[in-house]
């Protein structure tokens, strides 16, 4: 069973690292820890939290993307976001995929 929804992502301001907003309202480097908003209102809530974090200069460029959750793991639907959750597909030794923060189910295909 998978649920579809939206995840809020941004880049951490000071180092640019790709991060995801969690249910606890913190930012995680790992998409598995991301809050998945199923309802429109929930997504708007994530956006509002994102705007606050942008104003507080924690992150920059916050936006929502489509994702699904399956067996407790989160995966982006579009390839662009999947690459952001992994790292460059041509350098498997770099990025989240190499640092163990890619999420359990965040394969490219």
């Amino acid at each position: 069973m998978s649920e579809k929804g939206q995840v809020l992502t941004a880049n951490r301001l000071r180092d640019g690292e790709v991060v995801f907003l969690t249910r606890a309202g913190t930012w995680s480097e790992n998409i598995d820890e991301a809050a998945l908003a199923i309802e429109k209102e929930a997504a708007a809530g994530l956006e509002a939290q994102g705007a606050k974090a942008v104003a507080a200069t924690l992150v920059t460029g916050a936006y929502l993307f489509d994702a699904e959750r399956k067996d407790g793991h989160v995966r982006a639907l579009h390839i662009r976001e999947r690459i952001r959750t992994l790292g460059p597909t041509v350098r498997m030794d770099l990025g989240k995929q190499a640092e163990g923060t890619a999420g359990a189910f965040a394969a490219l295909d």
Partner: protein
Amino acid sequence: MYRYDEFDHRFVAERVSQFRDQAARRLSGELTEEEFRPLRLMNGLYLQLHAYMLRVAIPYGTLNGKQMDRLAYIAEKYDRGYGHFTTRQNIQYNWIKLEDTAEILEKLAEVEMHAIQTSGNCIRNVTTDQWAGAAADELADPRPVGELLRQWSSLHPEFSYLPRKFKIAVTGSPHDRAAVRVHDIGLRMHLNDKGERGWEVIVGGGLGRTPFVGVTVRDFLPEAELRAYLEAIMRVYNLYGRRDNKYKARVKILVHELGKEEFQRQVEAEYARKPATNVELDVAELQRIETYFAAPAYEELPKFSTGFENARIQDKEFAQWVKVNVAHHKQQGYAIVNISLKPEGGIPGDATAEQMRVVADLGRRFSFDEIRVSHAQNLVLPHVKRDDLYTVYIALKAHNLASGNIGLAGDIIACPGLDYCALATARSIPIAQGISRRFADVKRQEEIGPLKINISGCINACGHHHVGHIGILGLDKKGEEYYQITLGGSSSDDAAIGSILGPGFAADEVADAIEKILDTYLGLRTGPEETFLLAYRRVGEKPFKEALYANH
């Protein structure tokens, strides 16, 4: 090579401290991202897919060993041990932290480098022929003018908030290796009967969404007037270039919408209104700069190098590499060594810190401490004695830098695409890797002959796909990557924009498609001297279309 004097040092140091202040104001929240964005871009700092990306300027693609060593140091200390050489003769790092950037710029300033205007809607790094100063066919070294324009355009108070980015390329050779017809301004040197230098001024070329080949607005502009005349062009563009639509904001659109004659009239009117005052100052500055570009102290060498000839006989691979990668030098006994950054299955333009150090060292020992970056994302040792070629080759080979594919099917230009770039619609690197593996056999590449395969990961065309003999553009169709193929482009003297062949291909079909195109070419060419481009121009797209889409 140009060296900074105290003014250049002061200028760059002040720019670094200005950026330090801007970054601190951003981190403290005083500046919003919207306000900071143009400021960081004007210093080459992007926010990309995985992190910040810093693009460092390599003015007109020339650098020395110390600078290359510093680039290696930055790759190791602040990035992930590598860098990517770009089609604009720059280098970019993919994993930079905002909080480190000012420090990196400081380290660059120590070796007379910077990241000024490597992005943003301003005049970008001036590019030129990677063989400048060495090529056998050159009239004169275009780099003094490149340096003059670098200085003139650096923090130009009037032209830093243009409608869109602005790229200038210069060439001093009748054989255009700088793609001057597809730049916002292309400058091409000519000599008059008296042997004086003048410049053909070409405006409004460019790739991107609406590709154009530029038009010549002056056939022979006296060198002394160059800066003043460019100022007139810039002013017309700054005032009247479109700002309502980012895709229509480049000067090519202004030239196109006004028409060549009207654009020319406006520029000439502006130029006449404001006579070229103080051209003596330009002349004095140009003369000062020129002293830095005096030819190196070449040795008088015989035409024939016994060591080189012997090595060529004994080592077939070396002979092959020489045939493809080594070019004629204007000085007898010397050669131009092109170092391919396109190993089989590699990432075009990427070099590790270690490879950078190897090239830096070879440059110091064998090329008068000069290195070049080419717009095809390769490196060049411009002045190597033929006697030293084998030593250089062996050293390059030990570091996977001796691929003998310059100008052939394996020498693919590819932008970073969706693996790194936030604007991308599809990946370009894996496509390049696939084609490179498919045509790994050098014999086969040689049989096919001169070929430019250029790949971009979106319509912005950083991979110059429009001017590839074969161009590949990555697009997104409902979340799937697919690739459009164009044929017949060229960025050289015979500049042309390629035309789209037909429906696009999925990622795993591209290498097959390229192979079919090339097999078709091999089957129909009149002989090996008819290159792919010539054959395409003779027969048109029909046979290629049939080969590709017959069963569809």
